């Protein structure tokens, strides 16, 4: 064995804890190696020095003091009981916690739950009211509808486009927003007669309504000189025809409502394939100034909605300085 190996085993050697062979090997080495023998002796003294330290008595009464603290500790309620002192009613805390948690859960559910099924849209309410609002005979309604349509057009550039009316039937009044366009521009499509369909049928009917656009075209002439609009009107009508559309004249609607019998002279009604509209508008702007455009596109949610339905255009020629004045 070499000195390093001996040094590693000295502690166990001194305790006689090695195997016989190893123990003898160290004994032989120590007999021959002065340094290792000195180290072994120094180590032996160190071990004995610790074991020879006298046992020291603890202070008198230490155990009594300790027991006093322990008795005090045993009598003191634990943290749980300090936080929750006994209550007159023996209500289990976990039951109370369950109630509290349940209450919070109910409150949160009430706060964040969906608002319930919303009516498909305001249509059902309209349809529900429509039968109640069966319009008076057309003769009586037309005069009232006319001014309101004009008022709407005056303000319409700034109003958001209203959804199209429900299938206007002969007796259907529709709401004011619908009259914005639907009351003036006759539908190019044949609509069912009779009371307006309710609920989903109404929604689908609306979806089938083509897009309606109001274009406000600055006539370039001062107000009061509407007769000079004729040349501009002619140009616009020619453009409509060239764009694959057609002009709708008063009375052309199959519904033959009084509303359609009247068309202000500064208005042009036309229908155009929707995919031709952009080109038409670009051509229009080449010779006339379009001051604003109000588009009323119905929601195309129905899978049966036509891909490219005709677009109904109402062009309103406005005076030069006040483009918002539309109806004389």
């Amino acid at each position: 064995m070499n000195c390093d190996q001996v040094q590693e085993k000295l502690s166990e050697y001194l305790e006689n804890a090695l195997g016989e062979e190893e123990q003898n090997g160290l004994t032989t080495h120590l007999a021959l190696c002065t340094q290792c023998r000195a180290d072994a002796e120094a180590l032996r003294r160190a071990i004995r020095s610790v074991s020879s330290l006298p046992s020291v008595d603890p202070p008198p009464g230490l155990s009594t003091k300790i027991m006093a603290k322990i008795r005090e500790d045993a009598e003191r309620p634990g943290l749980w009981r300090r936080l929750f002192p006994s209550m007159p009613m023996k209500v289990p805390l976990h039951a109370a916690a369950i109630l509290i948690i349940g209450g919070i859960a109910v409150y949160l559910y009430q706060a964040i739950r969906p608002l319930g099924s919303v009516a498909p849209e305001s249509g059902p309410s309209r349809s529900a009211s429509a039968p109640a609002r069966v319009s008076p005979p057309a003769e009586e309604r037309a005069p009232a509808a006319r001014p309101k349509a004009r008022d709407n057009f005056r303000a319409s550039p700034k109003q958001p486009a209203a959804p199209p009316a429900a299938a206007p039937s002969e007796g259907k009044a529709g709401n004011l927003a619908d009259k914005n366009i639907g009351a003036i521009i006759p539908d190019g499509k044949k609509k069912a007669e009779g009371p307006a369909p309710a609920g989903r049928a109404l929604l689908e009917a609306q979806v089938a309504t083509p897009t309606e656009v109001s274009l406000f075209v600055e006539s370039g002439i001062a107000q009061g000189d509407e007769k000079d609009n004729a040349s501009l009107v002619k140009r616009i009508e020619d453009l409509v025809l060239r764009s694959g559309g057609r002009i709708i004249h008063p009375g052309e609607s199959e519904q033959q409502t009084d509303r359609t019998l009247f068309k202000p002279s500064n208005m042009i009604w036309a229908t155009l394939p929707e995919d031709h509209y952009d080109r038409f508008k670009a051509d229009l702007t080449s010779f006339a100034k379009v001051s604003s455009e109000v588009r009323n596109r119905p929601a195309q949610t129905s899978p049966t909605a036509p891909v490219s339905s005709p677009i109904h255009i109402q062009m309103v020629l406005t005076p030069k300085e006040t483009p918002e004045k539309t109806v004389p």
Partner: protein
Amino acid sequence: MGSEENDRESVRRVQAGETEAFEGLIRRHEKAIFNLLYRWLGDYDEAADAAQDVFLAAFRSLRQFRAESRFSTWLYRIAVNHSKTRRSRRAKTDRRTVSLEAADPERDGGPIASIPHPGPDPAEEVEQREAHAQIQQALNGLKKGDAMIILLHDLQDVPYEEIARILDIRMGTVKSRLHRARLALKDRLLRQSDPERAKR
């Protein structure tokens, strides 16, 4: 150290709610725990405080004690952990540097002073006390882990297996650590007694 049987019975009674049964555990292990703490902390009063804390901690956590190990092993573990915490909280320039003038129960009329020493020669007594103080000083200068393992084995005669459980280390590690700690102590004692020789 108290008998293992008595310890098990006392533990059982305390766990059943009989607080007074804990006193028997204190009396059987008080001296060993106190001495371990005294030799490790190097201060008599602090060792007394630490001993109170150790036994109080043992009482509070006795519910978690399982009879898988000896009660003394479990109690030693509490004492080791507590004394480590205490020691690390103390300032570096603390009273652990025991001088020959420091309070020494052997010298200053403590309980041990009243016990007649083996040697009749007072000079011999003084020499012994000085030697003990130097040993204590050497222990104080060791790394805390080294001092603790020496005290457990060489002072308290705790077997290797129990030391392994107390320190939560393997048996082989106990032996190697003990050997290194003893070598460190040896070197310190050599430096104290013969600085020139220690340099060689």
